[in-house]
């Protein structure tokens, strides 16, 4: 199990600690993250000082009931929302101090995000949806992008649907497509917010199989779910309640997954 108090003040100290303990540096690190929402009805603190690390190659699941702060946590990590206080480091960069624009760049470079309701563009074909992030990132030529998109669709087992529109696909197929899109620019980490929340249980299992395959290939995944059956498939399971971490559990998978983590994650 990875200690919750693996926590140092400077990056150099963290690096030394990593060398000393033989553990890689976290890809994502949250330090005492607090998020308070102010509304007409008063203020609600969704996160009460969260410390959390996501290491290369792990399949980290954050679970908890509705209202426990899971989605807020994801929004902090992806930079889709800002923390009230605390630090969020992503691939060595201080996301908490970034503007929306800078956060978007960091996200585009390091993360693929998968949402509960897929968030595909209904007016683009399946293949075009996968190519879209590659168009933004400008890492691939049109020809490479098209080939890569087809390979990703093969990986998630829907290559025969490449030319269809998303609405012609089932929910499970749409989420596979969303995973392929999230993988478009070969991100260091995949972040998934309730990716099975709109799917029946058999379809959900098949989608989690895809995440598991990706972990086996060395990818890093942070997955948020309220579903206990989905949660137990992670290599490490963090439980939230009322905006606090109340439990951390490692499963048999974990040591194996972490040791197989990819190099060069400070992309």
């Amino acid at each position: 199990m990875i200690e919750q108090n693996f926590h140092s003040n400077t990056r150099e100290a963290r690096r030394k600690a990593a060398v000393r303990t033989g553990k890689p540096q976290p890809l994502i690190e949250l330090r005492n993250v607090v998020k308070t929402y102010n509304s007409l009805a008063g203020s609600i603190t969704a996160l009460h000082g969260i410390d959390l690390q996501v290491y290369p190659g792990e399949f980290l699941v954050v679970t908890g009931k509705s209202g426990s702060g899971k989605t807020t946590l994801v929004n902090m990590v992806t930079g889709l929302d800002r923390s009230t206080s605390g630090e969020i480091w992503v691939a060595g960069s201080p996301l908490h101090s970034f503007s929306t624009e800078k956060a978007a760049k960091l996200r585009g470079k390091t993360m693929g995000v998968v949402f509960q309701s897929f968030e595909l563009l209904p007016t683009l074909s399946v293949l075009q949806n996968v190519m879209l992030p590659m168009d933004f990132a400008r890492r691939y030529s049109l020809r490479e992008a098209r080939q890569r998109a087809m390979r990703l669709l093969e990986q998630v087992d829907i290559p025969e649907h490449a030319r269809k529109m998303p609405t012609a696909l089932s929910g499970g197929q749409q989420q596979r497509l969303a995973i392929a899109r999230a993988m478009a620019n070969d991100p260091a980490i995949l972040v998934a917010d309730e990716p099975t929340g709109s799917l029946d249980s058999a379809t959900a299992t098949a989608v989690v199989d895809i995440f598991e395959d990706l972990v086996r290939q060395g990818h890093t995944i942070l997955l948020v779910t309220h579903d206990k059956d989905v949660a137990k498939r992670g290599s490490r399971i963090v439980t939230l309640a009322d905006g606090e971490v109340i439990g951390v559990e490692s499963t048999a998978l974990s040591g194996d997954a972490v040791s197989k983590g990819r190099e060069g994650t400070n992309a």
Partner: protein
Amino acid sequence: MVKMTSRFYSNSLQTTDLKNGPTAGWLVDLQDVVKTYQGTAGTFTALKGVDLQVESGAFVSIIGKSGSGKSTLINVITGIDRPTSGEVIVDGVHIHALNEEQIAVWRGRSIGVIFQFFQLLPTLTAVENILLAMDYGAQHPAAERPERALHLLELVGMVDQAHRLPNSLSGGQQQCVAIARAMANDPVLLTADEPTGNLDSKSAEMVFHLFENLAQAGKTILMVTHDNELATRAQRTIRLADGKIVDEFTNR
């Protein structure tokens, strides 16, 4: 703002190349349109021979119970779905005869599509969502797009939210941004499938009012709704039941 000049979709295809016939003056012309879905549970015919003509500048609402074929009707007009038989002609373009790539280019330039659940990309800001649509449509020079995008946001009352991400906006605000996005390429037709279906009544009124303004400015609008009261505020209402147009009336 993310720089958005697509290298992948700057298609040289001209929309005028796609026009292949006189249109008898209708902007939208559906002739005996049938749509059958093949499912594991058998076949289901969502549209059973629909004829519909809409003139340019009309504001038409489409009502009917859930499962009556309303969404399918909109989807065959936008080319998101293909008819099993019959003809779909929009602004002189025979949609049913185009291939997928041609449909995508045509749709990006000619139709503004608005959905019940907004379908903004959550990782892009409001103005970036609009720039993305402009990029795909390639109707305006790249240098003019940011200003035009902000102008469209102003039109829908959202210019102050231009640099915010969709999840920090209310549902009504997100739909206003989605309407601005639909207008990105100055389309000949706006389609909206239950645009107020996911909004509280106050936001619904705000969004519907925007459509009324656009109609007054001369935009052609096709709107699916199950809110009969809103439906009667369009110039013309058609009612579908069981895949057929069963009723049609002019309001006011």
